[in-house]
C-alpha cells in the first residue's frame, strides 16, 4: 500500500511541475501575442522605422534579421559540417581531439554579450570593418558554431555503426560511406538542428548590439547592387535587427508610439521563432520520409 501511495504522489508532483512549465510558456506567449498582434499590419511590417514620430514600421529591421541569419548560416554551416564530420567519423582519441571538444564546449558557454564585445574589438575596431552586417554575421557565427557542430556530430553519431560497416564492407571508401550513407541518414536530424539554431540566432540581440550596430540606415529596395551603400545586400552597412530594435526602443525609444512598436515587434519576433521551431519538425520528418522512401 505504501509503495502505491508513493507512486501516486510522485506522479502527481511530476504532472504539476509539467503543467507549471506549460502554463508559464502559455502565459508568456499569450501576453506577448495578445498585446502585440493588434499592432501588426502590412504597413508595420514593411515601413521604415521612425525615431521621433509615430507610425514607424519594422521593414528594414525584419529584412536585416533575415539577411543576417542567411549570412550567418552560409558562414557557419560549412565550417560546422566539416568539424562535425571530423569529430564524429575521423577524430582519433588524442589530446588534439580533446582540445577541440573542450574549445567547442567553452565557446558554447560564452555569454553572447561577451561574444559581441569581442567582435566589436576585433572586427569593428581592430580590423576596421565598422558596425556592419559582416561583423554581425561573424559574431553570430561564433555564437552558432559550437551548437551547430555539436548537433551535426550528434546526428552523425546517432547513425548505427552497422551502417558504417555495411558501407565499408561493400567496397565503399570511408569518405563515400560518410558522405553517401551516414550523412543522408543523419540529414533530418541535422536540418532540425540547423532550423532550431536559426531560431536562436534570429532572436539574438546582445551579440549584435556592438557588431551589426543599432542603426537602421535607409536602404533602397530598388537597388540590389551589393557594392552600393544603400543596397539591401551591402555587407558593410550597419544593420539593426528586430531583436536589437526591441531592446533599443525599450531602453531609449522616444517615439510617441514606442510601446506599441515594441509590442508589435516582439510579437513578430516570437511568431518567427515559433515558425522556425514548427518547421524544424515538419522539414525533418519530410526529409526523413523522402530519403528513406517511407510512404
Amino acid at each position, binding site marked *: 500500500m505504501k509503495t502505491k501511495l508513493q507512486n501516486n504522489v510522485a506522479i502527481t508532483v511530476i504532472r504539476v511541475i509539467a503543467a507549471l512549465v506549460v502554463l508559464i510558456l502559455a502565459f508568456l506567449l499569450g501576453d506577448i501575442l495578445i498585446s502585440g498582434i493588434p499592432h501588426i499590419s502590412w504597413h508595420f511590417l514593411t515601413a521604415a522605422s521612425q525615431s521621433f514620430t509615430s507610425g514607424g514600421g519594422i521593414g528594414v529591421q525584419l529584412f536585416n534579421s533575415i539577411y543576417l541569419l542567411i549570412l550567418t548560416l552560409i558562414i557557419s554551416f560549412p565550417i560546422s559540417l566539416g568539424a562535425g564530420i571530423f569529430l564524429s567519423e575521423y577524430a*582519433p582519441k588524442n589530446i588534439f581531439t580533446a582540445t577541440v571538444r573542450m574549445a567547442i564546449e567553452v565557446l558554447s558557454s560564452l555569454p553572447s554579450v561577451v561574444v559581441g564585445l569581442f567582435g566589436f574589438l576585433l572586427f569593428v575596431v581592430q580590423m576596421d570593418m565598422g558596425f556592419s552586417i559582416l561583423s554581425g554575421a561573424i559574431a553570430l557565427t561564433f555564437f552558432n558554431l559550437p551548437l551547430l557542430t555539436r548537433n551535426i556530430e550528434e546526428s552523425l553519431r546517432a547513425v548505427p555503426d552497422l551502417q558504417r560497416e555495411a558501407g*565499408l*564492407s*561493400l*567496397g*565503399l571508401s570511408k569518405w563515400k560511406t560518410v558522405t553517401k550513407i551516414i550523412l543522408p541518414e543523419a540529414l533530418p536530424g541535422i536540418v532540425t538542428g540547423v532550423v532550431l539554431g536559426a531560431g536562436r540566432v534570429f532572436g539574438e540581440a546582445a551579440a549584435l548590439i556592438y557588431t551589426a550596430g543599432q542603426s537602421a540606415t535607409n536602404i533602397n529596395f530598388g537597388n540590389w547592387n551589393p557594392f552600393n551603400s544603400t543596397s539591401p545586400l551591402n555587407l558593410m552597412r550597419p544593420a539593426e535587427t528586430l531583436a536589437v530594435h526591441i531592446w533599443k526602443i525599450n531602453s531609449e525609444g522616444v517615439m510617441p508610439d514606442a510601446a506599441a512598436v515594441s509590442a508589435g515587434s516582439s510579437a513578430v519576433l516570437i511568431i518567427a521563432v515559433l515558425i522556425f521551431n514548427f518547421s524544424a519538425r515538419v522539414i525533418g520528418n519530410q526529409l526523413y520520409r523522402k530519403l528513406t522512401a517511407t510512404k
Partner: protein
Amino acid sequence: MEEFITTKDIHLYYGEKEALKGINLSFPAKGINALIGPSGCGKSTYLRTLNRMNDLIPSVTMTGSIMINGQDIYSPKMDTVDLRKKVGMVFQQPNPFPFSIYENVTYGLRIAGIKDKQLLDERVEQSLKQAAVWDEVKDDLHKSALSLSGGQQQRVCIARVLAVQPDVILLDEPTSALDPVSSGLIEDMLLTIRDNYTIIIVTHNLQQASRISDRTAFFLNGELIEEGKTKSVFLNPKRQETDDYISGRFG
C-alpha cells in the same frame, strides 16, 4: 585441395588480449565453409580478418599472412576498398541502408561508377532472384528497405553483396536474428549459389553447419581445434573437444 584463401599463423590481439592464437586455415575456391565454436572463441574475429574489417578497431594488432587468390591482402599495396569489393560481407543484424530496395542493391555498383540504367536493372533483378527475395519485392522495388521483414531485409542485404559480384562472401551468423522459415530460405539460397562463390559462414547453429557446409572448422578459445570435410568433422571428429562440442556437452 587447391587453396583459394590461405591464412598462415594469424595472431590477433585486442589490446593485450590475444583473441586468435596462430590460426592456419585454408579454403578451396567455391563451396560453403562453416566456422563453428562457442561464443568468444574467435571465429567472428577470424572472419573479419578476411576483409580487414578489424582494421576499423584502433586497439587491434595482427600478425601472420592472408592470401586470397594469390594476393597478400595485408600487403601495404593492398587497397581495402578493392579488397572489400572482392570479399563481400553479410552481418548478423540485417543492416539495409534506409533507402529503397532498388537503391540498396545498386548502391555498390553506382558508387563504383556504373550508370547504365539497363545494366543496373538487370543486376537488381538477377541479385534479388539469387537471394530468393525477388518474388516478394518485385512489385515495389522503390519502397523503403526498412519496411521489409527482418528475413527479407537480410536477403536484400545478401542481394546487395551479390550485385557487386564478389569472389568471396563472408556471413557472420546471418540467420541468428531470424525466424526458422527465413533461416531456411537463406540456407536454400546459399546452397543454390555455392558453385559460384567461396562462402564462409560463421554459425552457432550446428545443424545449419552440418546441413549446408562442405567443410567445417571448429574454433575454441582463439585456437583452431579441427578442420576438414563437414561429414568427417561431425561424424568422426579427431579431437575430444570437437566431439564434446558437437554432441552438446559444452558451449
